[in-house]
């Protein structure tokens, strides 16, 4: 049984599914829900729907004011009226990923089997599991074919997974700052972040909610490490240089001397307020496990027959998901003979460029969407 209701906790909706979800790990989740938000209007032919896939720390609120941060949504520059993903024209859907912490079933929900919080009993999930849940949502919305599936970073992984697993259900794909598989270096960064959380005594093997605690230090350090990887050397240099934080001289101690230290600590602390540590563990693991090349090969005929159009985008200064990895996507898609376009946007702001005001990036995306025939 599936039914859609308004979301009591956040703006948007909840799709509740009273059925079991078979995961890649072989395990099941028996009852789950998907929290999502929509923008714009679905037309009668139901052929103007675009699915946005959020990145690791994103949520289902890319546009308008975010109910979580009370600031503009994380992709407000990209999604909205007269934006590149124009909600006057398109019906935009964005859902919180499986394992997330903004309404979709995740490790801090109650396990219906035990009536206790899952914690680490939550099964390990994959990017394909996340996409499987999104497909259920799209089916429930009675949309046969998405005009486009668009996402950056972990969102790009989901986007490619969509083409590989459900080639009959997508017209086009925009993969932004993504890769076919998580690199060794990226797994290494993820592991450093996870260890930081799991070594925090307040983590309590994942059962911190029952103890009324939070591994705040661990999660905040994990975010600091990750945040460094989202920028570039030049971005740090331009923004902070070696400037001191509200002082004229070095303190000869280990407090905050440099502006960059203050910034990182602030990023870490702010993150703790809006994100959950266990979700962070599960989602980074899902990224580590991601490798979509084989499935693309497996379904290549369907990808070709459906004439899916791909746009692969990268940023010059992104060293977390460098241009080379986007080119590997292009190369693979070319080798199966699919319709692929590629553009590299010049930006010195690193991986995070896809969330920032990058006019060239917007124009490329908008141009590509304009060229998609309904």
């Amino acid at each position: 049984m599936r039914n859609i209701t308004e979301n009591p906790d956040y703006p948007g909706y909840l799709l509740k599914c009273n059925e079991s979800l078979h995961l890649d790990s072989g395990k099941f989740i028996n009852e789950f829900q998907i929290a999502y938000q929509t923008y714009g209007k679905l037309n009668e032919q139901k052929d103007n729907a675009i699915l946005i896939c959020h990145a690791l720390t994103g949520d289902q609120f890319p546009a308008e004011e975010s109910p979580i941060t009370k600031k503009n949504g994380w992709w407000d520059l990209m999604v909205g009226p007269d934006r590149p993903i124009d909600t006057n024209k398109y019906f935009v859907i964005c859902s919180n990923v499986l394992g997330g912490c903004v309404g979709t079933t995740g490790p801090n929900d109650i396990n219906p089997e035990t009536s206790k919080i899952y914690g680490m009993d939550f099964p390990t999930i994959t990017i394909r599991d996340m996409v499987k849940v999104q497909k259920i949502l799209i089916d429930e919305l009675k949309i046969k074919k998405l005009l486009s599936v668009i996402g950056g970073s972990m969102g790009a992984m989901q986007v490619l997974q969509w083409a590989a697993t459900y080639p009959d259900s997508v017209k086009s794909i925009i993969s932004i700052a993504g890769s076919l598989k998580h690199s060794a270096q990226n797994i290494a960064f993820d592991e450093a972040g996870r260890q930081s959380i799991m070594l925090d005594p307040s983590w309590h093997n994942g059962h911190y909610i029952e103890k009324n605690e939070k591994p705040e230090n661990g999660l905040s350090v994990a975010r600091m490490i990750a945040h460094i990887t989202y920028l570039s050397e030049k971005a740090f240099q331009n923004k902070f240089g070696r400037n001191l934080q509200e002082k004229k001289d070095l303190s000869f101690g280990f407090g905050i001397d440099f502006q960059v230290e203050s910034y990182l600590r602030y990023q870490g602390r702010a993150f703790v307020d809006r994100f959950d540590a266990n979700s962070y563990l599960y989602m980074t693991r899902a990224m580590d496990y991601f490798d979509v090349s084989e499935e693309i090969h497996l379904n290549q005929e369907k990808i070709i027959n459906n004439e899916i159009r791909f746009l692969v985008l990268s940023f010059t200064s992104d060293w977390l998901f460098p241009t080379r990895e986007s080119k590997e996507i292009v190369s693979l898609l070319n080798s199966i003979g699919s319709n692929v376009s590629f553009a590299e946007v010049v930006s010195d702001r690193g991986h995070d460029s896809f969330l920032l005001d990058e006019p060239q990036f917007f124009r490329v995306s908008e141009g590509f969407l304009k060229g998609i025939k309904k």
Partner: protein
Amino acid sequence: MRSDYQIILDLIPQNSKVLDIGCSDGELISLLANKQVSAQGVELNQEKVISCLGKGLDVIHGDINLMVEDFPYNQFDYCILTQTIQAVQKPDVLLNTLKKIGKNIIVSFNNSARLSKVTRFLLSGSFDSLLKKADSDQWYNTDYIHPCSIKDFKKLAKDLNLKIISTFDVVNQKKFIDGKIPSNLFCKEVLFLLTNE
């Protein structure tokens, strides 16, 4: 329509797979797509890439000197270089790569050895006239870094083991076969159809 495009449209059969290197704003791939040819472009200029995307064309953004190697082998029936070869850093290296990714190669260029051009060079004593692509070009800032003649290109094809199927005098729309080539002295623009077989 450009006269070399007309020849190319006549040469390429339906349902072929084509890579147009230096596709600009996609005029040729757009014409080919209308003819049921599956065409993809490569273009360095981002504005032109955006223009191609807006027309629903498949285009890869990048420097042809660096990125053609990213294409998998044996992917294309035709690789096309119109008015580009003289601006490529290493024409021999590029052609060798194209040989691997496509069956046939189409190259068109302006014959740098034609009498009118050589005469102007002799009379003016300046390389500007020989290397000019646009009016603002001078010998030190031109894209035409490799001026070449019809004879030069024929020799390069031989050195690279590329077989010449036919050649065209583009302006006069005249075809040459059996190893014949347009006049090195009088032909303004030439088009070569080569194969790696």
